[in-house]
C-alpha cells in the first residue's frame, strides 16, 4: 500500500526547521476550503436536514422536530422505487451502449489513425460544443412524426403512415443520451490505450495471435481501466439526468431526476424532494464505490 510511504515521510518532515511555506499553505488552502464548505458541503447538509422535516412551515433554518415521514413516504410508494430502477436501467443501458460504441473509435484513434488522430479527435469533439438543448432538440427533429426518419421511410414507400412510436418514450431517451455521450466515452478509453505499447500487438502477431485474439488477450485487458472509467463517466451523470427525459421522454421516459425537479418546482414539496435527492445521492455513491472496488482506480493512473 502507498499509505506506508506517507507515514514514513511525516516524522522526517516534523523534525525539519519550521517550513517557510507555512503561511503560503494557509493562504492557498483557505479560499478553496471555504468555497467547498460553503457551496458543496453546507448545501448538501442543509438538504439532508430538510429531508427530516415534516413540512416547510416556518423558516428554513428554524429548529424542528426531526421525522422520518418523508423517507417513509418515499419508501412506501412503489412508484418511486420503480422510477429509481428505471433510471438505473436507462443509465446502465446508455453507459453500456456508449462505451461499446466508443471502444472501436478509441482503438482507431490510438492505433490506426496515425498522424490524423488529432483531426479525428477534434471532429469527434466538435458536436460536444453545440448547445446541449439543441442537440436534444435535433433528435426531436430526427424522430418526430414529421421528422427525418419518418420522411425517409414515407418517401421511399417503406411505410404509408408516419410512425408515432419513435418519440416520447424510453427508447428516445436512450438514443438521444447515447448520441450525446459517445464522444465523451471515447476519451478515457483513448487515454488508457495511449499507455499501451503498440509493439505488444506486433509481439502478439509474431506469436501467431489472430487479430481477434490480440484484441481479446492484449488490447482489452490493458485498456479495461479506461473502459470502466468511460462507463462510469457516462453512468453517473445519466442517473441524475432530467433534461433529456423532459424534452423527448414522454410519460414512459420519465426518470428519477424528473420527480425531484417536480417536487422543487411545480409540486413544491421540498422536504419530500430532499428525501428523494438523498436516496439518489446514496444510490449513486454506493454504485460508484462498488465500481471503484471492482476496478481499483490506482490502476487508472499507474501503468
Amino acid at each position: 500500500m502507498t499509505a506506508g510511504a506517507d507515514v514514513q515521510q511525516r516524522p522526517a518532515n516534523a523534525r525539519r526547521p519550521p517550513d517557510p511555506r507555512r503561511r503560503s499553505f494557509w493562504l492557498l488552502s483557505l479560499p478553496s476550503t471555504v468555497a467547498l464548505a460553503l457551496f458543496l458541503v453546507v448545501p448538501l447538509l442543509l438538504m439532508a436536514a430538510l429531508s427530516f422535516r415534516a413540512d416547510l412551515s416556518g423558516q428554513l433554518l428554524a429548529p424542528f422536530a426531526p421525522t422520518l415521514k418523508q423517507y417513509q413516504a418515499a419508501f412506501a410508494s412503489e412508484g418511486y422505487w420503480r422510477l429509481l430502477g428505471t433510471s438505473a436501467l436507462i443509465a446502465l443501458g446508455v453507459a453500456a451502449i456508449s462505451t461499446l460504441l466508443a471502444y472501436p473509435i478509441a482503438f482507431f484513434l490510438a492505433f490506426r489513425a496515425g498522424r490524423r488522430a488529432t483531426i479525428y479527435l477534434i471532429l469527434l469533439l466538435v458536436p460536444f460544443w453545440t448547445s446541449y438543448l439543441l442537440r436534444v432538440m435535433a433528435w426531436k427533429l430526427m424522430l418526430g412524426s414529421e421528422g427525418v426518419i419518418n420522411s425517409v421511410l414515407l418517401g421511399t414507400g417503406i411505410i404509408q403512415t408516419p410512425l408515432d412510436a419513435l418519440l416520447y418514450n424510453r427508447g428516445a431517451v436512450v438514443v438521444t443520451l447515447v448520441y450525446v455521450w459517445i464522444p465523451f466515452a471515447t476519451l478515457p478509453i483513448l487515454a488508457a490505450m495511449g499507455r499501451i505499447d503498440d509493439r505488444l500487438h506486433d509481439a502478439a502477431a509474431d506469436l501467431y495471435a489472430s487479430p481477434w485474439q490480440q484484441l481479446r488477450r492484449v488490447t482489452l485487458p490493458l485498456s479495461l481501466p479506461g473502459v470502466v472509467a468511460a462507463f462510469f463517466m457516462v453512468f453517473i451523470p445519466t442517473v441524475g439526468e432530467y433534461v433529456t427525459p423532459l424534452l423527448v421522454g414522454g410519460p414512459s421516459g420519465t426518470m428519477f431526476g424528473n420527480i425531484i425537479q417536480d417536487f422543487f418546482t411545480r409540486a413544491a414539496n421540498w422536504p419530500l424532494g430532499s428525501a428523494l435527492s438523498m436516496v439518489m445521492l446514496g444510490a449513486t455513491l454506493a454504485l460508484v464505490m462498488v465500481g471503484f472496488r471492482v476496478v481499483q482506480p490506482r490502476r487508472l493512473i499507474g501503468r
Partner: protein
Amino acid sequence: MSASKRAAPALRGYVWLLLFLLYLPIGLLFLFSVNANTSLTFPLKGFTFQWYEKLFATPALLHAVGNSLLVAVGSSLVATILGTMIAILLSRFEFRAKGLLTGLATLPLIVPYVVLAVALLVLFRAAGIPLSLVTIGLAHVVVALPYTTLIVFARLVGFDRGLEDAAMDLGATYPRTLLLVLVPIAAPAIASAWITAFTVSFDEFALALFLAGKDPTFPVYLYGQLRFATTLPVMIATAVLLMAASLTLILGAEVIRRRAS
C-alpha cells in the same frame, strides 16, 4: 515513429458511419437555420438568412448570450484560480487532510446535477440570497472545480521540485517562487483548465434552470423559447453561430497547446 498500420476497412467504415451519425443532427440544425420556413419540417422551403438577421434584432436573446458569457468568464476564472491552488496543495504539500481535500474537490463529479442544484437552491433560500447570475456562477464554480484541479494537478505532479528548491535557495520567498516558477510551469495546464471550465459553464442548463433568477443565461432562455415554435429557427441560428465561435476557441486552444509542448 514508423508508419502506422492501416485500419481494416470495416473499422474505418465504422468510424466514418459514427461520425456521420454524430453530425447528422447538427447538419439538420444548420439546414433549418437557413430554411425559409418557421416549422422545422421537410420539405425545405428555400434559402434565407432572415433568422440570422432576426437574431441580432432580438435584444433579449443577445442579452441572454451576454449573460452566459459573463457567467462563464467569471465562474471559469474563479474555478481555475481555486483549482490551481488546490493542485499546488495536493502536489507540493504533505498534510493530514489531504485525502479529505482530494475527496471534496472531486466530489462534484459524483453528485448528480439535480441533487447539487436542489441543495444549492435550499442554501440560497435559507441564506436569503436571491437567485441571479451569481448563484448560477457559484454552482458552475463547484462543478468545474474537479476538472481544473485535476488538469493542473496532472501537470504539476510530473514536474521535478528541484526548480522550486533552487529558487528558494537563491533567496526567493515561497510566494515569489509560486508566482515565478510554479505558475509558469503550470501555465499550459492552467490555460486548458480555464478553457475546460469555460465550456463546462457556458452551455450548462441543468443547474442553471434551478438557480436562475429573472435574468436568464442562454440555455435557460432557449428552454423558455422552446414552447414557441415560431422562434425556434432563430434559436437554432444562434446555436450555429455559437458553435462556430466555440470551434474557433478549441482550435485556438489546440494551437496554444502545440506551441507549449
